[in-house]
Structure formats: C-alpha cells, structure tokens
C-alpha cells in the first residue's frame, strides 16, 4: 500500500456547528430506515420490497452482484428518485412524501425534497465533483448555497475540512488536476461539511486505481471510528470485514441476508451469498 495522507478528526462540533451525529439521541434508534421500498423502471422491477435500518453510529456494508439494485436503493434513500411504494424514514420521521387526501403517499415537490436532502450525504462512484469549481469551491458550495453561510465563514470551514481529509495544499486545484483518490476525498469533504445525519457511499473506490483505494478507505474508516452513521455499497470485502457493524446482501432487488460481518462472511445462511462471496474472493 502506498503512503497515506494524514486524516484529521473529521466530525467536529465546533467546526460543523450543530451537535455531531454520534452524540445525539439514543444509541439503538434507527437513523435511516427503509420500509418495503418498491421501485421500477418501466417493466423492470428493480427494488422488490427492501426493508432495513441503520442504527446510530453504525456502518452498514451492502454487497451484491451488478444490477441487483444497490445504486437504485441508495438513490431512493437519498430522495433522488421517487419510489412506487414503501417509506424512507430519517430518525423515525417519514421523509420525501406527503399523504394525499385519499390517503395515498405522493412525492413532495423537488423544492421541498431539496431541503430534506441536506440531512443525507451522498458519495458517488464517479465522484461527480463540479469541474468548474476548485476543490475548495466544491466543499463551499453546499455551505453558501444551501446552508446560507456567508462566504468567509464557509471558506474557513471548508478549508478546515479539506485539511482533515489531507488536502490542505490542494484547495486551489480544479477536479481535472486531482487524482481519483484526491477527487473522492474532496467529494467526501463536500458531503461531510453539510453535517449530515447519515452518509451514503455508492462504490466509492470502484473507479479508482488500486494504489489509490487505500487513501479513500482511510478517510472512511476514520469517519466510522468517529461515529458517523454510514451505508456503504462496496466490493471491498476487507473493508466490510474490518469496519462494518452489519453486512447486507442484495440480490435481484431484495435483501437476502443481513448479518454481522463474522457471521456474514463466516457462515452465510443463503446459498446465493455463499456463491457470491466465492466469486469475489
């Protein structure tokens, strides 16, 4: 493994303002919950009743073959796509929908959804940094345009956050001038600076050269250690074993296994999980 950047303390109450995720509320409460999510694209039923919850401070790893609906599930949890039925709950409160007069649930307008999305951080496989903004600009934009912080304050917070993911010297660089690992760390900082209640990661290291995977995983491990609630879709079995509190197996739009890592990897109940693990090893 190559040399890794120093990762500073990531969740800091003084920096982010509000109480950090790990200290608020009870320990066994679900921060994020999916209840019977159904989602289809045309005739393609992508999610067929997905139900699970993430407890405060827990890391949930999601494994599963390509096309099983992992990314779709994260997009639905992040309120980026409407579901056919089922609910997403954040700290016990149903989000993303309202009850119509006839009792059915209808998706809220985009403007209102935008407000609810602030509480949920998302990191993408292909980083999706904004190419016209510097590393600093990418981290600042959520603070200035969503959290309504003034530019000076936002700059200070963003600089500190970039330093914490080991990129203090790169703040003036544009995404096209950064390595994949650096870009993904900026993307994590961009989401983190919003002080979300939960972070969703969609294969955050899959688009990286092997020698750059470590630096991104290091940031994520530090985040987990500091008590951030996380859902991580990944093919990194090592990461799941080391960091996850529970591991989920997704197959054809359903969760077929949900167990602590030693059980999941040591003695999976489902034949399909066993086959999948043999294939990735």
């Amino acid at each position, binding site marked *: 493994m190559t040399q890794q950047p120093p990762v500073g303390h990531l969740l800091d109450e003084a920096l982010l303002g509000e109480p950090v995720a790990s200290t608020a509320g009870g320990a066994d409460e679900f921060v994020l919950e999916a209840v019977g999510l159904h989602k289809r694209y045309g005739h393609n039923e992508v999610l067929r009743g997905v139900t699970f919850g993430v407890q405060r401070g827990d890391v949930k790893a999601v494994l599963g073959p390509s096309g099983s609906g992992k990314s779709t599930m994260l997009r639905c949890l992040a309120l980026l796509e409407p579901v056919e039925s089922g609910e997403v709950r954040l700290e016990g409160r149903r989000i993303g929908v309202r009850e119509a007069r006839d009792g059915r649930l209808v998706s809220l307008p985009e*403007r209102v959804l935008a*407000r609810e999305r602030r509480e949920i951080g998302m990191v*993408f496989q292909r980083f999706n940094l*904004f190419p016209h903004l510097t590393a600093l600009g990418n981290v600042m934009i959520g603070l200035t345009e969503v959290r309504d912080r003034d530019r000076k304050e936002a700059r200070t917070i963003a600089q500190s956050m970039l330093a914490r993911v080991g990129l203090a010297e790169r703040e003036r660089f544009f995404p096209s001038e950064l390595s994949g690992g650096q870009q993904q760390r900026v993307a994590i900082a961009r*989401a983190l600076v919003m002080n979300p209640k939960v972070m969703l990661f969609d294969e955050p290291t899959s688009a990286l050269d092997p020698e750059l995977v470590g630096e991104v995983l290091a940031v994520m491990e530090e985040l987990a250690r500091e008590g951030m609630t996380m859902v991580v879709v990944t093919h990194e079995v090592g990461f799941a074993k080391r960091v996850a509190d529970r591991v989920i197996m997704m197959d054809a739009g359903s969760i077929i296994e949900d167990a602590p890592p030693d059980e999941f990897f040591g003695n999976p109940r489902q034949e399909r999980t066993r086959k999948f693990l043999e294939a990735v090893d």
Partner: protein
Amino acid sequence: MEFDTSIFFEALTSPAYLEGVQITIALTVVAMVFGLILGLVVALLRGSANRVLRGIAWTYIWIFRALPSLLLLFLVWDGLPQLVPALKGDWFSAFIAASVALSINEGAYAAEIIRGGLLSVDEGQRLAARALGLSPTKVFSKVIAPQMIRVTIPPLSNDFVSMLKLTSLASVISLQELLARSHSAVSTTFKFAEYYAAAAVYYLVLVSVFMVVQAQIERRFVWMSQGSSGLSRVQRVRQFATIR
C-alpha cells in the same frame, strides 16, 4: 489600376459610415441578446416533461431554421403590418422589424446549440447537486449553466459573427446600416471599389474586435488552477486548446 485612396479614406472616416457601423453593431447586439433569450427558453421547453411544450419548441425550431433570413425580414417588415394593423404606425421602424426577424431566426439556431450544451453536461452533475440539497433553480444556475455555457461559447460566437454579417440583409428593408451606406455612396459616385472596400475594412475590424472579446470570455472558462496566474497568454490558449 483605378483606386482613389483619398476617396477610400474619406469614406472610412465619413459620418455616414460611422453611423452605419453603429446601427450594424446595435442590431447585432439586440438580435443576439433576444435570440439567446429565445433560444434558452426554447431549449428548456424542448427538454420539458410536458408534451405540448416540447411540441411547441420543436415546431419553432423546425420553422425558423428552415426560413431564409431574407424571407423573414420581408415577412416581418411587409407581411406583418398587413396582418396586424397596429404595426402600420411610424414607430414600427426598419430597425425594430430587423431586430424581430433576426432574433427569431437566431433563437432557432441558439436553441439547438444550447440544447446540445445541456445534453453535454454529465447526468452525475445534476445528481450530485441535488444530493447536496441545492434547490432546482440553483442546480441550474450554479452547476448546470456554467458547464453548459463553456461548451456553447465557440458555436455561439460563430453565430455572433454570422449575425454581424446577416445584419447587412436589413439594407433591403431600408435600414441604413453599414452596407446600405456604402450602396448609396456608390450609386451617386460609381466608385465601387473605394466605398465597398471601406465597408469591408469596418466588417474586418468589428469581427477582429469580437475575436478578442471571445478569447477573453473563453479564458474565464479554463478550469485550471494555473489559468489565473503564472502562465503566459500563449500558454493559456494552448492549454485551452488541449482541453477542447
């Protein structure tokens, strides 16, 4: 060879030509500004979820990209007042008619360019902006628009240069722009070469000035940290060329 340089220089500095140039510039700017606004609206309608709105946008582009600019000028200047009597007043000047015709024309072209620009922005950009919690208007203005503008600058600049020359068509509806001025000078003196050459010089100068402006604008869309300091202009232009 018969070329009277004194007539040429006289034409070049004559008040008639300077006024003509002003009208040419004004018409170009007005037609481009309204054309771009129209184009943006039509491009957004074209991507709308509503079928009727999409249909309206498609029809607009279909019609006004097909009609020759000259025909549009005649239609607006001569045809429209026949249909709409309110336009028969003196206020409906050749300048206004030309502005309307050329804006409508440009709108159809700009709509397609802007639509292409919108399509060129990676879908992940909108997704990431929405995930951050940006409102729909900010997703567009802060994330999509800058990236769209960057790719549309070269083709829209091309349209600007075309427009500068298209305005000369308005001489046929009696607008006293640059070409009309040289025409009338020629018709009394028969010094074709001198007067037309003077007009040509003006068009060259106008386009050259615009090229400098375009380079300035493009430089602001070089998303490189070195772009704002250190490098010489030549290096920056080279850098831009390699990005594109």
